[in-house]
């Protein structure tokens, strides 16, 4: 068993198998896991907001889906992975409270998911699986060797996508 590297909120980390990456308690944020199956190099980003171009103070790259995914891919490729082999899985983007919809940050979970998918598409990275939306938090662990993306929630059985 390798080491499990922790990714914080508005953060990203890469790892090489047998190591894994984890992020705890994803709510409306989205966790994007990307790997190169051949080399076992992969990583995880924990993004909070969909679009860096909509925010004035956007220097924090891993905070946004667009810049966060770009940076994650850059680091994975720099570590020796092939860009053309990369595949992705995503989780999170929940709506934790029912009435968030009248907020300026309308359905930010949903928008985070949409923005993540859009960015992956732009980069031609296939999205193999997702566990998104709903109204509960998720802890995720990603193993770049097998591609297993383990999802744990309160009061629910563990899921592997």
């Amino acid at each position, binding site marked *: 068993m390798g080491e499990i590297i922790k990714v*914080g*909120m*508005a*953060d990203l980390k890469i790892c090489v198998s047998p190591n894994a990456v984890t992020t*705890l*308690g*994803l*709510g*409306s*944020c989205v966790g994007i896991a990307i790997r190169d199956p051949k080399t076992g190099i992969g990583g995880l980003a924990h993004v*909070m*907001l969909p679009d860096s171009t909509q*925010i004035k*103070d956007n220097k*924090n790259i891993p*905070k946004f889906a667009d810049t966060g995914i770009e940076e994650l891919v850059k680091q994975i490729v720099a570590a020796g992975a092939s860009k053309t082999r990369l595949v992705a899985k995503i989780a999170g983007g*929940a709506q*934790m*409270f*029912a*009435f*968030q919809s*009248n*907020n*300026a*940050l309308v359905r*930010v979970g949903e928008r985070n998911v949409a923005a993540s998918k859009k960015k992956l598409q732009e980069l031609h990275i296939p999205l193999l699986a997702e566990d998104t939306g709903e*109204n*509960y*938090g*998720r*802890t995720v662990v990603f193993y770049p060797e097998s591609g297993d993306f383990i999802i744990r929630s*309160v*009061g629910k059985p563990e899921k592997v996508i």
Partner: protein
Amino acid sequence: MAELHLEEMSSQYFDVLKEIGNIGAGNATTALSQLLNEKVDMKVPQVKVLDFDEVGASIGGEELVMAGIYLMVEGDITGSIMFLCEERAAHSLVARLMGMEDDGSGQFDEIQLSALKEIGNIITGAYLNALSMLTNMKIYPSVPDVSIDMAGAILSVPAIEFGAVGDKILLIQTQFSDDVAIDGYFILVPDLESHDKIMRSLGM
């Protein structure tokens, strides 16, 4: 100053928020005591400005199951307020409010969730009253909503609101105690214009 960031917040303004936190938590303690018809003590609140990745650890871990009660705020200032406490403490509060035995575990049923919302309503209302009185501004909270989930997931909601304007989150920690100690956390997220209004109303 429309370009306020928590990082650059003046120590004077920080003191004001701290003082509002003190008074608000004091009000909340009185309200809680009246609600439960019991004596409730309070420790001096701590006001912290934290990085996103420090928040989880500072309240006991991202995966700690907590109850979060969240309200939108409208009126002269707009934003949101959240009250958070551990699931265990929430069970204890609800049981005492309803005059029932605290089974201390399991799921909250509809009535218990409703009671929990009311507790959150009263506690955050007391806090907002302090802010309203100090600033002489009208503040109207929405109906509350509640989530029982991992701390990280609940906190992602105010964190994202803070995240739209900066990279820090303002957390007010209050410890209530009677039979058991209850760590409660307030998170107030005024939008940028509201920060400005709060300061102006205080002549800063």
